[in-house]
């Protein structure tokens, strides 16, 4: 793999239980080989995505974030992924204001049958983030501030 000095990004992926996590299952069953850089978290619905999860991931060292759910209109909970879209748009604006490149955070729809598509999208995302290089938020001076935002009421 030709890379940015061998830079291998770490990406956190948020998937819903019904479509995109099953798409990952499907990609596995089909033995599709794709970039190993994404580590998935299962939630019941992409509507569960709290923007602070994304900030937390980036602040704690992830180089990018993938958010994935059922296709609009196919939501297991009828319409919650439309709320994901709205929330995601707001999140993007916030991230842009914080200087995070647009390509680092990506929203992908994948139905339970679309393992191939999810794998392709992951490959694309990884390639794009490789081209951007590490995010390195953790090393930045104001990272504690971001962490504070991200941490919120999370007592750990």
């Amino acid at each position, binding site marked *: 793999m030709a890379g940015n000095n061998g830079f291998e990004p*770490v990406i*956190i992926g948020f998937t819903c239980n*019904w*479509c995109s*996590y*099953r798409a*990952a*299952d499907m*990609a*596995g*069953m089909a*033995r*599709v*080989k*794709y970039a*190993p850089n994404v*580590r*998935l*978290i*299962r*939630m*019941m*619905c992409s*509507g*569960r*995505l*709290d*923007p*602070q*999860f994304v900030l*937390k*991931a980036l602040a*704690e*060292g*992830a180089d990018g974030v993938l958010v994935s759910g059922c296709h609009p*209109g*196919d939501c*297991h*909970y*009828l*319409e*919650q992924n439309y*709320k994901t879209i709205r*929330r995601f748009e707001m999140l993007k604006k916030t991230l842009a204001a914080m200087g995070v490149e647009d390509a680092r955070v990506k929203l992908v729809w994948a*139905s*339970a*049958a*679309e393992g191939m598509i999810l*794998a392709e999208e992951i490959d694309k995302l990884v390639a794009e983030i490789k081209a951007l290089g590490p995010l390195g938020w953790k090393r930045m001076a104001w990272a504690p501030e971001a962490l504070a935002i991200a*941490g*919120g*009421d*999370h*007592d*750990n």
Partner: protein
Amino acid sequence: MNDDVRIGVYVCHCGSNIAGTVDVESVARWAQDSLPGVVVGRDYKFMCSSLGQELIEKDVKELGLTRVVVAACSPHLHEATFRDACRRAGLNPFLFEMASIREQVSWVTSDKSIATEKAKALVSGAVRRSAHLEPLEPFVVDINPNVLVVGGGIAGIQATLEIADGGSHVYLVEREPSIGGHMAQLDKTFPTLDCSACILTPKMFTAGQHRNVTLLAWSEVEKVEGFIGNFTVTIRKRARKVQTDICTGCGVCEEKCPKKVIDDVFEAGLGYRKAIYRPFPQAVPKYPVIDVENCTYFQRGTCKACEKFCPTGAIDFKQEDEIIKVEVGNIILATGYDLFDCGRIPQYGYGRLANVFTSMEFERLANAAGPTGGKVVLRDGITTPQSVGIVHCVGSRDRNYNKYCSSICCMQSLKFAHIVKERTGARVYNFYIDIRTPAKAYDEFYQHVVEEGIIFVRGKVAEVTDAARMTGEDGKLIIQVEDTLVGKQRRIPVDMVVLSAGLEPRGDAKETAKTFGISCSMDGWFIERHPKLDPVATMTDGIFIAGACQGPKDIPAAVSQGAAAGARVMGLINQQHVSLEPVRASVNADQCSGCRICNNLCPFNAIAFLEDRAVSEINPALCQGCGTCVAACPAGAIAGAHYSNDQIMSQIEGLLMLDLKQPAPVPA
């Protein structure tokens, strides 16, 4: 983190499925050495085996584990298995967590060291999350014993009868005026060649008469609400324009109706029906419907011949659609298939060349109750063909159309060959790529047809044309094909061509899936819960599928699935109640500021605002656990059980491998 958390980590080899790519021993050892809270890390050949489960149970008891993490396949496969093991060991099953290192690591990664690293990260995430898990009690709901079956083809009828005979009530919804489905159109059924109607009609009749069956033909499901055990289904009963309580099904109206219409559905476009009609004489229910679009009265305002002649005065031109609601505990979908439209392959000439027929047209042609009374003739209605070419795989196994095998066409084509031979003595060619006859007595049937002198040409037909080029071709249809066993291009003149059309998902399968909350495969078939081990269940509890809506299927397979779905539903009904995941949201009233932001977010209307206390409250019976309100609450007052902020935040930390404990000293 809670200091007295004691976590056990179990890494599965899954034979070589995982161990072939991931260094499972090192993952287990590393987990024990480096992950905070982990007191034991083990690897085992098959964690899901009874020995693997016993290993967990033993550790829970002997080492006092308070959390269990298994790194193996997808939780969709074995989460329930390991939760049971925990329960047996006295640990609350929701203190169990799983990492999918097969589907997400070993099967999708080639490099062993990279795969091992990723597996470690996933295990770390699961371990960190598990520390924050809380014990939960499953949510128990009663199961309404009534069942909805959608689709009155053979699979739906079979499911209906299984359940109705078992004593529960079934609402059988059918879109067409009569149940029976595609099977009612067929002439004979392979491999035994018994007459399709003869074996189907008794079943249709029983379903129509059964005291436990409410038959809703000429009806469609509009809306489904609720969840397993408690669905509310809205059904549109379309207006027949005939009062079924007084109609005797005598058929006089049909006789007297002056408007003839080409019957695209039952006769596959090969025959006619009237504007008021029953698709076929043995229709169940026996009442006719008025086809408003073709009825002279509805189009021009005069006629009413049916009303004039109806002996009981059952015609009701003013009848309107009726919307009814039924309460059921389980739903079986048996919505069947559509036939591939042969006109999509222009080089086969269907629609342009008169004597090119589709398989369903041929069925009607061969059917004694069909437009020719069972005579196999050309489109002129009189000429018996001297030679017939039957083309396999039309629209199947072809990336230009459908890449899957439609599975019924080989046997169907062999059956056609036999019927043509038997009734006309014509020379019959079968053009095939592979002959697939894998079920009981199928290959014997193939042998039998070969013995009858049918000619088999191995090659996918390139084109069918009426453009004669050589002597002997004038006035014929010429089938151009490479005879692959000879290795030469051949042009074979015939009188009749039968295209063995493939099966396709219903044109509206996607909408149906959406209505019932299930998913379709890339090809458009409904997806089963597991392709081998759970073929009639879906990912949505309480929704089952049977027959060709799940994939191409012949009659025996469709019947098996209908019966299987019936048995699955009966099992649930007998349990009387079902435990649901306690993944629910709840409001901490002390923290709720009463801003009502969450109120409009819930599509299930589970959130109510208590005016007197000025706080929102969530009804756990209605909540489906998506967590959208949890993410939205500005005060952080809504807790999402099993997917709390704490749990997800810790999983993020774990996945990023933060704060690993110092490697434990090597034991002496």
